């Protein structure tokens, strides 16, 4: 058995939408092994992206919240839903927990009015006592009605988890998104962004880098161009200087303006060179080394002439090239997990083939790294992945090795998905085996099996009882009453049930 990188148990992510709860991810268990390409397939709203985002705690809160579950990374427990539950079991406020939010403000207001009246009725005079009384009133009201130790605990719990998760995300996990243009900053060169990804820099270090770049470019400028720059600057200085002095055209003035102008570019250039000399040698070497690493990364993802392209801006790259840059940046940290969320959906078929090929190459190069590929396209899964998770309605419906899944699909939903794709074996213009109906609203999922509204082979209990995810053959897990019943009939032996 291969080593587990991630272990996820009973992960739940709920979104609060206009007072209603959307169970985007509702109890998901899966493992990510080292060195595998795991495919997560599902339609829109199936929770495939959300579950991976919850795994690395990137769910915007509010509206979303990872409410339950357990996440273990390399044997270290990162998120424990039980602890969160224990915190949440404590009543929300210190006092009067039966009051709901709107009544609470009303009662607090009444309390303050009563205090004020009491203050006025009692013979306390003077402005300073009144001020003290008002401050006291604010404090007491807050303590009585709005003080919530639970909230504080919850915040510290999350803060601790987020901090740890940020560390792991910074060094161990990388993500690639569907639209590469929105993930790249258009005002920085690719080189700067890649170096930033390899080694995050402080502001001072960034200034140093700019000085090194500018000094290098000044040194590399030919003398002719330096003279040209001086002449242009001199002319500009004369023009604006004369503009300022009201076109006096005094000879001495003209000379001094010309000299100032001509000197300025050279002075700035030599200033940069001087500053460059002040920067320690080790830093220079480190910078050069980082650039070399950046070039190597770009080369690794197959970008032609990486030395020159390092100085280009994102808009100078095509869609496929940008996705390659994204992958290069993701690889910069040497992550142990690479999550690719629909990396090829926005790309053309021939470019998609290039990117998928590249991902497989990366997998071959880095043996203990895992890649999770989220997609809606079963064909992409078949081409690239080793193990597949099929998701529907916020739950995992089937898990299997890719060949097993395509040869022997057990869940009706998986069968339906496979039937929806035209294959060469199918007779031309024959009807496709489509799944009827439509994806249910995420706010209004059925009680029992999430697929029961569209399933053709459902039985009575599908409507009310959600089947457990059960291991049918080693490594092949299915969540379907029919399959489980059949299996139980065949072998009346105890089976492992994970729910």
């Amino acid at each position: 058995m291969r080593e587990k990188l991630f272990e996820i148990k009973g992960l739940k992510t709920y979104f609060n939408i206009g007072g209603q709860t959307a169970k985007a991810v509702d109890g998901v268990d899966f493992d990510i092994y080292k060195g595998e390409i795991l495919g997560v397939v599902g339609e829109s709203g199936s929770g495939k992206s959300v579950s991976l985002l919850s795994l690395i705690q990137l769910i915007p809160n509010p509206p979303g919240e990872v409410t339950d579950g357990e996440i273990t990374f390399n044997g270290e427990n990162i998120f424990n839903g039980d602890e969160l539950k224990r915190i949440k079991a404590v009543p929300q406020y210190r006092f009067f927990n039966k009051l709901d939010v709107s009544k609470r403000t009303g009662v607090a207001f009444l309390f303050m009015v009563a205090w004020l009246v009491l203050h006025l009725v009692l013979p306390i005079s003077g402005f300073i006592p009144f001020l003290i009384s008002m401050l006291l009133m604010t404090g007491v009201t807050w303590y009585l009605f709005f003080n919530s130790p639970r909230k504080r605990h919850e915040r510290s719990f999350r803060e601790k988890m987020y901090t740890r998760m940020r560390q792991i995300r910074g060094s161990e996990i990388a993500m690639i998104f569907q639209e590469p243009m929105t993930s790249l900053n258009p005002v920085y060169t690719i080189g700067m962004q890649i170096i930033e990804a390899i080694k995050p820099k402080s502001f001072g270090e960034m200034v140093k880098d700019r000085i090194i770049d500018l000094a290098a470019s000044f040194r590399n400028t030919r003398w002719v161009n330096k003279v040209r720059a001086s002449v242009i600057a001199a002319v500009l200085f004369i023009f604006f200087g004369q503009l300022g002095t009201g076109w006096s055209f005094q000879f001495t003035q003209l000379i001094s303006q010309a000299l100032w102008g001509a000197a300025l570019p050279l002075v700035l250039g030599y200033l940069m060179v001087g500053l460059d000399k002040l920067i320690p040698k080790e830093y220079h070497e480190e910078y050069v080394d980082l650039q070399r690493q950046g070039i190597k990364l770009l080369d690794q993802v197959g970008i032609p002439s990486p030395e020159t392209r390092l100085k280009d801006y994102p808009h100078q790259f095509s869609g496929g090239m940008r996705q390659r840059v994204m992958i290069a940046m993701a690889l910069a940290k040497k992550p142990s997990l690479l999550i690719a969320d629909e990396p090829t959906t926005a790309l053309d078929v021939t470019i998609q083939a290039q990117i998928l090929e590249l991902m497989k190459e990366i997998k071959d190069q880095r043996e203990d790294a895992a890649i999770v590929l989220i997609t809606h396209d079963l064909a992409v899964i078949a081409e690239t992945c080793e193990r597949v998770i099929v998701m529907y309605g916020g739950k995992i419906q089937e898990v299997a090795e890719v060949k097993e899944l395509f040869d022997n699909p057990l869940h009706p939903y998986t069968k339906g998905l496979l039937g929806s794709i035209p294959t060469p074996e199918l007779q031309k213009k024959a009807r496709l085996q489509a799944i009827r109906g439509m994806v249910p609203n995420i706010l209004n999922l059925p009680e029992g099996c999430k697929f029961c509204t569209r399933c053709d082979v459902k039985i009575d209990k599908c409507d009310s009882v959600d089947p457990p995810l059960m291991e049918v053959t080693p490594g092949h897990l299915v969540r379907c009453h029919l399959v489980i019943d059949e299996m139980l009939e065949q072998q009346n032996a105890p089976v492992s049930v994970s729910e």
Partner: protein
Amino acid sequence: MSDKQKLVDVKNLKVHFPLFGGVLSRRVATVKAVDGISFSIKRKETIGLVGESGCGKTTVGRALVAILRQLYPDVEIDGSITYNFNGKSVDFARLKPRELRKYRSKVQMIFQDPFASLNPRMTVAQIISEPLQLHTKMNDSEMKDRVGWLLDKVGLQPEQAYRYPHEFSGGQRQRVGIARALATNPDLIICDEPVSALDVSIQAQVINLMMDLQEEFGMSYLFIAHDLSVVEHIADRIAVMYLGNVVEFGESSTVYYDPRHPYSKALLSAVPRPDPHRQRESRIVLEGDVPTPLNKPSGCGFRTRCPLAEKSCAEEIPVLEEHALEHWVACPIVKEKNAG
């Protein structure tokens, strides 16, 4: 193929978009979106048009419904698009908008994005009855009956007619779009990537629906898509486009299983198949990106990425030649090789 069977005959169609720039808005460049293509569509036939983004396939579809001039007033259209409606032949590339209006009902279009193709301020009934108001003299109750009948045909409930598009899912909206296209009994429906924005399980439903409707009403489809497996399934003949030119045209199974043009070969091998046992070594991975139609390479547009490219490719644009029966390929080198 006799001319009577032909519904539309496209001959040497060119669609160029001039680009303007500078203070005086002078013409600075030309985007040759479609650069001289010819094909024909028979009655009750489905033609698949495949190619990557920017190859001009959508422009071909829009030229066939003759909406380019109104969308882009500066567009330059050359060549002919001759329709044959009940023995009367009409050239859509030359007709004036006023004369075109009579024939508009015969050619309809289904769009890619089901969220953008329906006016969000109109109810489904208003959307579907709009072409009926324009092209028929139905009264209100007839129109209502027709809308209900159409909704039933595309698998929606007639009660849903008074709802707004935002209350429907993507697949249902696409069904509304199909009902609108169907309303005037068209002879040809241009389907511009009708399923690529839909979920996989919904795609199959819509494809089934489209095949059923063709069976029942006998119209022709021009099916534009980038998903080759879908096109192979639904189309009778396939045209492969690259940078504004058709590089291969023929029976769909011929093109799919025996592609001749190097681009078609690469495209087909790049398409992922839902078959984990497939041999992957045979895949041809093309180098580089599609050049923009703004600065097309001289001669054959594909020569910059072509594994077979020779010096002669830069000289002239290859024309479609019949390599086998009903199988046209635009590559002289392949022909030489096959002959030799």
